[in-house]
């Protein structure tokens, strides 16, 4: 026996009507009818289908009288009449108490028939009292019922429900609003908390249709009105906000209709494939820097971003009456300069302050700076005043405004959230105009999760969070002096995106403009431009190149130029990667980056301070003391060990260190100790010199001169000033006269020369011998030598000014540099000299004669120029000599 599907004629008719109606509306939609009209027409179509079936059911069941006791109510999105082609429809059969028996068959039949037509139904059968009771318990039911609409049946029953529901909602408005907000927040968390999620759900993600509904519900609870138009008339919504909501609603409704019609089913996720399709449907053409899909999504983000802000604002404004906290606020807060009131969690402008804020960027930044300093949120009303004033702000920056901004940038605690706030209020564009272009700019690739503006803000946020990071990133970040420069670089680093040209090049121009606007010094400008221009350099090298190749690391170090810039680049690279999306920066990547950073720092600063842990150093010192054995000089040993730099302590076995210190401990003032030893494994001779500072001024350059005079090539050198003015220098040299170990006599001769050089009266200049040997003539270098550079870093060390000198190697170079520093009246306390093929990287830690850092810009410039001139002179002489030979 076969089962013949029997469907009532009324159902078949309704089904056909639905399919045909939907198809007709699809055509209307394709012709460009506004989303709100198509949605309204869809609701009409659904209404017609539902009513037809309802009437047929009443007639068939012979219960026309039920019309007196039953009301058919649409609620939720269907109640609101903004339905998409394949939306669910929510229906409630409302009946008076005691009519259950009559209603049951009607309900059964309606559910079955509606199901058969292909509509997706959410149904319920309730009395007005039950409905209100459920709404009390369940926020979702409550919000859905707030959008009720009577379709058919008894107006009396419906009226009874509506009055009771409205009374109840407004009676407990406060609690209800909180509950509604909470439910929405939970949903948003699930579907994407930031607007800038790259695959948003048009209904549920932040700024989506649900947020417009949220505004309606809050409006209903608070004002008894749920329609944006009425809310505007009431004055609850400003005309601008109303306009933003209307435009976004139209865009989103049409978008969702398009997505449903195309999919032939309910489909709300704006995934990548759908974005590409829609960009084409909407006719975006793209331009040199932006793909069509990026333009489309920017439009989407701009509108949803607007919704998100309007709704937040609306909710904040709708919170009922002054709460106890606000009454008590004056007791727990204090006035700041008569303009602002700083409370336990918030900072607010008073009437006088508000007046100042209007139209004055400097005052706005003053407020932001204070909020950052005291780690307080800026109060809602104050934010509103700023937002209203923002469009009228001049984009001319005064000196004071720029200073306020830089002061704000220097403090981590609230920086990121304040910058984000300023961006949302439209203030940030006035300071950095390029930020306007990045607003809502999507990066259509598999890699980035956020739009450009959000990515940059996030990068700043992540950097400030390194403040409490226990790893290498934290220790480097915490030591940075000019954090503001790093923060600014992060804020700018990707703003060059969305143009035809390479974004690093555009970024460089933006960095330059910004520096000029903010009136940065030459040095700050240079660092900022470097960081923005080269923000991909370190990641590229660390992940794509062999970083165990020393030549590569040296080139990198030279390109970065100073220890401070290197540290900033390290933190910037990590923050940039982390801001791409969750999980992009992991422990593995940090390790690879930290490794390159450490290697490069060894060339730039002589050591990598961040990576030598205190514990490790303590162990090492203890081991050296143990090797030294018990002696009456224990305290002296301890004192000297405390002064030895980490690189030195870790770089050799404790027994060797103990032996060296033992030699030094017997030195008297005025003595000079020089020792030499050939090292089989490296083919170099090591000379160690110990003496006291007091022996003669300019110890270092004199020793370097003596070595050069003897025709030795200095491969590397370290000089250390220990406790009590004890100097310990160490040179690794190559002797071109001997291919293998030189005879002891030669080593002794050099040692004597070293001692002599310090005892001789000053002024004798060594002559550099032209060296004859195979390969001594400079081959045209395979790598073009980088131009001579001198960089100054006053931030990395507390006690010293650091000079980094990069030059091509030549005989007498070290002597020339050391003498130039000496003649500039500087005292070299620590130096590290490295020669890598033909590139020399020299690091000097210097102080002036009073033992202070050199901070005067003019003086530093002078010293730099003298150094460059001296090296140039050496170069010239070498060239002359070559001609002569």
């Amino acid at each position, binding site marked *: 026996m076969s089962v013949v599907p029997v469907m009532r004629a009324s159902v078949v008719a309704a089904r056909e009507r639905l399919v045909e109606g939907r198809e007709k509306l699809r055509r209307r939609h394709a012709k460009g009818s506004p989303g709100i009209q198509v949605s309204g027409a869809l609701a009409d179509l659904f209404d017609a289908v539902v009513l037809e079936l309802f009437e047929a059911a009443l007639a068939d069941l012979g219960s026309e009288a039920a019309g007196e006791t039953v009301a058919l109510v649409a609620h939720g999105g269907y109640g609101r009449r903004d339905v998409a082609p394949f939306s669910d429809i929510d229906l409630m059969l409302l009946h008076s108490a005691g009519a259950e028996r009559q209603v049951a068959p009607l309900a059964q039949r309606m559910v079955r028939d509606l199901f058969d037509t292909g509509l997706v139904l959410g149904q319920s059968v309730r009395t007005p009292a039950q409905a209100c009771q459920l709404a009390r318990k369940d926020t979702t039911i409550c919000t859905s019922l707030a959008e009720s609409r009577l379709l058919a049946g008894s107006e009396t029953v419906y009226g009874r429900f509506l009055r009771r529901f409205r009374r109840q909602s407004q009676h407990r408005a406060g609690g209800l609003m909180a509950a509604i907000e909470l439910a929405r927040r939970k949903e948003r968390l699930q579907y994407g908390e930031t607007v800038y999620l790259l695959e948003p759900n048009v209904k549920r993600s932040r700024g989506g249709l649900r947020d417009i509904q949220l505004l309606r519900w809050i409006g209903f609870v608070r004002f008894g009105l749920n329609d944006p138009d009425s809310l505007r008339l009431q004055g609850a919504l400003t005309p601008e906000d109303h306009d933003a909501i209307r435009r976004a609603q139209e865009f989103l409704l049409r978008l969702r209709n398009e997505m449903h019609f195309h999919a032939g089913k309910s489909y709300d996720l704006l995934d990548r494939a759908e974005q590409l399709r829609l960009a084409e449907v909407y006719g975006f053409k793209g331009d040199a820097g932006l793909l069509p899909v990026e333009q489309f999504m920017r439009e989407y983000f701009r509108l949803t971003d607007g919704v998100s802000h309007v709704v937040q604002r609306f909710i904040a404004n709708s919170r009922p009456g002054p709460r106890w906290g606000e009454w008590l606020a004056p007791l727990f807060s204090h006035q700041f300069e008569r303009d602002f009131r700083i409370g336990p969690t918030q900072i607010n402008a008073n009437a006088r302050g508000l007046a100042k804020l209007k139209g004055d960027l400097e005052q706005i930044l003053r407020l932001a700076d204070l909020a950052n300093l005291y780690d307080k949120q800026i109060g809602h009303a104050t934010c509103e005043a700023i937002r209203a004033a923002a469009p009228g702000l001049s984009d001319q920056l005064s000196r004071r405004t720029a200073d306020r901004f830089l002061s704000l940038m220097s403090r981590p605690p609230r920086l990121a959230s304040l910058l984000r706030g300023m961006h949302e209020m439209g203030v940030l564009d006035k300071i950095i105009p390029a930020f306007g272009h990045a607003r809502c700019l999507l990066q259509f690739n598999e890699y980035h999760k956020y739009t450009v503006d959000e990515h940059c803000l996030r990068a700043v946020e992540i950097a400030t969070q390194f403040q409490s990071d226990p790893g290498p990133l934290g220790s480097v970040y915490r030591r940075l002096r000019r954090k503001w420069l790093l923060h600014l670089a992060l804020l700018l680093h990707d703003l060059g995106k969305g143009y035809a040209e390479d974004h690093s090049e555009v970024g460089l121009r933006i960095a330059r403009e910004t520096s000029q606007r903010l009136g940065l010094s030459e040095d700050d400008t240079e660092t900022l431009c470097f960081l923005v221009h080269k923000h991909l350099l370190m990641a590229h090298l660390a*992940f*794509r*190149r*062999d*970083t*165990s190749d020393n030549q590569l690391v040296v080139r990198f170090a030279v390109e970065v130029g100073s220890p401070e810039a290197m540290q900033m680049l390290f933190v910037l690279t990590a923050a940039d990667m982390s801001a791409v999306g969750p999980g992009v920066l*992991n422990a*593995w*990547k940090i*390790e*690879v980056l930290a*490794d390159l950073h450490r290697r490069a720092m060894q060339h730039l600063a002589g050591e990598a301070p961040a990576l030598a842990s205190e514990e490790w150093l303590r162990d090492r010192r203890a081991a050296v003391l143990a090797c030294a054995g018990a002696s009456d000089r224990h305290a002296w040993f301890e004192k000297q060990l405390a002064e030895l730099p980490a*690189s030195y302590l*870790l*770089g*050799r*076995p404790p027994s060797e260190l103990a032996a060296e210190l033992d030699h030094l401990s017997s030195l008297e003032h005025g003595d000079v100790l020089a020792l030499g030893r050939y*090292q089989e*494994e*490296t083919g170099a001779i090591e000379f160690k010199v110990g003496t006291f500072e007091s022996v003669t001024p300019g110890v270092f350059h004199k020793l370097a001169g003596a070595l050069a005079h003897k025709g030795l090539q200095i491969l590397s050198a370290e000089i250390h000033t220990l406790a009590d003015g004890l100097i310990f220098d160490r040179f690794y040299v190559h002797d071109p006269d001997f291919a293998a170990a030189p005879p002891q006599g030669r080593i002794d001769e050099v040692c004597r020369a070293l001692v002599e050089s310090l005892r001789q009266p000053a002024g004798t200049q060594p002559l550099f011998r032209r060296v004859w040997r195979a390969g001594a003539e400079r081959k045209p270098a395979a790598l073009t030598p980088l131009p001579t550079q001198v960089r100054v870093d006053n931030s990395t060390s507390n006690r010293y000014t650091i000079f980094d000198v990069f030059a091509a190697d030549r005989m007498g170079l070290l002597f020339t540099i050391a003498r130039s520093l000496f003649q500039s009246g500087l005292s070299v306390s620590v130096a590290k000299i490295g020669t890598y093929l033909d590139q020399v990287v020299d690091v000097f830690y210097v102080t002036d004669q009073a033992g202070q850092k050199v901070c005067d810009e003019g003086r530093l410039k002078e010293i730099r120029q003298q150094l460059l001139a001296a090296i140039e002179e050496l170069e010239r002489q070498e060239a002359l000599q070559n001609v002569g030979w």
Partner: protein
Amino acid sequence: MKKIEAIIRHFKLEDVKNALSEHGIQGMTITEVRGFGRQKGHTEMYRGTEYAVDFVPKVKVEVVVPNAGVQKAIDTIMRAAQTGQIGDGKIFVVSLDETVRIRTGETGEEAI
């Protein structure tokens, strides 16, 4: 069918990936890993003295190939990943019982 697991220097990944796709190997899985072999972890040469640091970051590449293609795949990886220095990594070849493409249910070499 064999699964080839290659532990390589991380910066050689691009080269290995390109070389493999040139030789018609379409899919691969990449994992960021840490470890050490005979190299005994990371040793830092500083003025002639070594001190041990930690596990070394490497990348693990996994590809599945038919038996006939194993030697070619190994050669390709070797050529692309070699620097000649200690720490170039290792290649492991594992026999594979079965492969299933989840979408279609295809099995064996069809599914690679």
